[in-house]
């Protein structure tokens, strides 16, 4: 069996906590910031933005020490946002190869890709690495990448990158020479090992690789052998790929409770942009978006928006969420927001030359949302008749455009239309031989010319919504001698007459 050549690409994101937080906060662009970890007041700096580092801020500084730098913004570490950023990055690298091993460290994102066989798709390793870093930059993450035939050499090289190109590629067999100038810090050393090497005067990987193997093992054990192999770039590794599930989720925790809808939407806009970007990378659109607000009262406010067709239009999503939140505002200040999106194929509409004129689905969604904001949620839709003989039995369903084939209207005779009165208005009726002869409706007296009835009906006697009524169709004359056709009704258990509907 022949052994195939190995080729690994390591993607390394230093100061990951700071980058994960600034990713969704465009207001921090170009400003020095640090991330604090720990319980107040004994918080310490755990991650530093490069501008803050340039000012002299270091890891482990306390809050008081950082406050000596007035320009530096302090942020609290958010593991949820880091997890969301890690998912987004794994999703990004997963679009290049399914064989990815996540080797993340407490304050850095680190993953290694097996890129054997990707040359025909993405070009040489350097080109692939640059494309990948550009894709990560779209996610507002600055990373560096190194490619090598050895797994651990690629990691060490990626950690040691200091040049502005952010991409290093080592040819097969050159690992030892490429790793030689790197400091020992790129290896995974514990404190005791670091002190030992410092005492021996070993500062670079080249110096470590030059140590005699047997004597090193005699003093440091098998760990010494492992470190020496790492420094030479020939430590073997069993690759364990793990394919992360495709999950479109973004989380943001606010520094202070947010009460204004505009401020919330500002953050939601940025999160939507990221979600749509990730969906677009897989040629997908968003089918629905669920927005979960963590409120001050330890409750969650969840809203889901689902337009007629999947779409990747950020402005449309933002407006739909805006209108939905206006109609259903949260009842307390917001501490954190989470967006979860369901991906799906983008909607396709086959337009026909002779197809009837119908509204554009995405525009109609927006229009219906605006109308719902005006008249109420349940007041807009298409009427659906219920299978009941109860008068006015219907319910309203959400309106959806369905492709309909033109058909000839059934040849029905012209029907008199009914206009319902909701709620029914009470009228006073004069009876003669138990038949209506006149009535007063809206302070006008009408004389009945013809009365047809009584039409008795009842139903639902097996449930609490039972109904039983007596109806009359009346042809009446108004005081101005104009015709007035109506339907009046009386509950069988009551003597009060109501105007149910008018014929028009």
């Amino acid at each position, binding site marked *: 069996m022949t052994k195939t050549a190995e080729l690994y690409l390591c993607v390394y994101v230093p100061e990951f906590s700071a980058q994960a937080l600034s990713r969704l906060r465009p207001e921090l662009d170009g400003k020095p910031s640090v991330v604090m970890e720990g319980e107040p007041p004994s918080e310490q700096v755990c991650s530093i933005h490069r501008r803050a580092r340039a000012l002299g801020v270091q890891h482990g500084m306390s809050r008081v020490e950082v406050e000596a730098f007035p320009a530096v913004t302090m942020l609290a570490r958010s593991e949820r946002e880091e997890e969301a950023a890690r998912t987004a990055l794994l999703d990004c690298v997963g679009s290049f190869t399914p064989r990815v091993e996540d080797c993340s460290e407490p304050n850095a994102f680190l993953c290694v890709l097996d890129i054997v066989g990707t040359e025909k798709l993405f070009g040489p390793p350097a080109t692939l690495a640059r494309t990948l870093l550009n894709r990560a930059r779209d996610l507002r993450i600055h990373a560096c990448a190194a490619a090598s035939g050895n797994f651990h050499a690629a990691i060490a090289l990626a950690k040691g990158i200091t040049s502005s190109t952010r991409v290093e590629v080592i040819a097969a067999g050159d690992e030892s020479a490429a790793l030689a100038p790197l400091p020992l810090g790129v290896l995974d050393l514990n404190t005791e090992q670091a002190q030992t090497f410092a005492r021996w005067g070993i500062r670079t990987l080249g110096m470590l690789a030059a140590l005699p193997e047997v004597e090193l093992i005699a003093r440091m054990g098998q760990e010494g052998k492992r470190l020496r192999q790492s420094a030479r770039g020939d430590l073997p590794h069993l690759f364990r790929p793990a394919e992360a599930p495709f999950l479109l989720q973004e989380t943001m925790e606010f520094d202070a409770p947010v009460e204004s809808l505009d401020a919330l939407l500002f953050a939601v806009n940025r999160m939507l942009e990221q979600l749509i970007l990730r969906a677009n990378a897989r040629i997908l659109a968003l089918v629905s978006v669920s927005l979960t607000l963590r409120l001050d009262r330890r409750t969650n406010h969840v809203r889901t928006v689902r337009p007629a067709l999947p779409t990747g239009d950020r402005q449309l999503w933002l407006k739909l969420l805006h209108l939905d939140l206006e109609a259903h505002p949260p009842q307390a200040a917001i501490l954190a927001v989470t967006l979860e999106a369901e991906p799906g194929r983008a909607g396709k509409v086959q337009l026909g030359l002779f197809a*009837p004129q119908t509204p554009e689905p995405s525009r109609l969604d927006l229009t219906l949302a605006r109308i719902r904001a005006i*008249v109420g949620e349940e007041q807009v839709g298409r009427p659906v*008749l219920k299978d009941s003989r109860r008068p006015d039995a219907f319910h309203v369903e959400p309106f959806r*455009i369905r492709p309909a084939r033109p058909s000839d209207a059934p040849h029905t005779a*012209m029907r008199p*239309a009914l206009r319902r009165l909701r709620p029914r208005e009470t009228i006073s009726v004069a009876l003669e031989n138990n038949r209506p002869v006149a009535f007063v409706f809206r302070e006008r007296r009408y004389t009945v010319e013809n009365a047809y009835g009584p039409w008795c009906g009842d139903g639902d006697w097996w449930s609490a919504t039972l109904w039983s009524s007596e109806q009359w169709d009346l042809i009446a004359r108004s005081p101005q001698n104009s*015709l*007035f056709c109506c339907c009046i009704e009386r509950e069988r258990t009551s003597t009060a007459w109501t105007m149910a509907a008018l014929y028009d």
Partner: protein
Amino acid sequence: MKPAAAALRLQIESALADRIPSALTPAQRAIRPVASTGVAEVDTLLAGGLPVGTITEMTGPESSGRTSLAYSFLAKTTHAGNVAAWIDVTDALDPESAAAAGVELSQLLWVRCGTVAGHSRMHRSKPWPRIEQGLRVADLLLQAGGFRAIVLDMASLDAEYPSRVPLATWFRYRAAAERTQTCLLLLTQHPCAKSSAELLLRFHSATARSSEATVFAGVEYALEVERRRFTDTSVIPMRKPPRSTHMGAWRSRAVWAGPR
């Protein structure tokens, strides 16, 4: 050959210019599309149906047939695969009755005005908030486009309320309807859109049919074309044309009265 014919025509026209202007050039005619109402008598009266991309006003008292004609028009429209909207200012639409008239309910967007989101229904004696809701919804639907017919139903409101809607509103609707090729039907008791309405139909008080002794059989309706904004008057006929009729009549028959 063609240049010679054109030159000849120009020569003849210039010679006759003082007596017959543009003698050999047919006058341009604007073709205005119409949509059938589904009632043969009304279609004949309107020379094909309701004009598309305009405002049509249907005015008249209660029980005069405005809603019946609107249902009939919507039945034709929705069965052709088009989408229609009913903006119900007084929440009076009866879906059962509309379905009986042939309206495809799945193609009909019904907007019921009269409730403030999260609150109870508005009182009938104060219709202004409902009218305002209806006008805003009409604006949105007209701007969105794609609806073949939009009915703004204010038929149950007293005449004084729709008349106080600013004329600028109707003017805006007219422009939007023309742009999106939507038939906007106004059901009112009194004309309110003035010159913005292309067609004004006045429904007269109807007559009840008394063909059945025991059930309500139907109504005989009558309408008059009170105003039509554009009429084809560019061609002066040699003979005196037959006098066009402005009155139409048709009848409805209730489902329960059965066929006769």
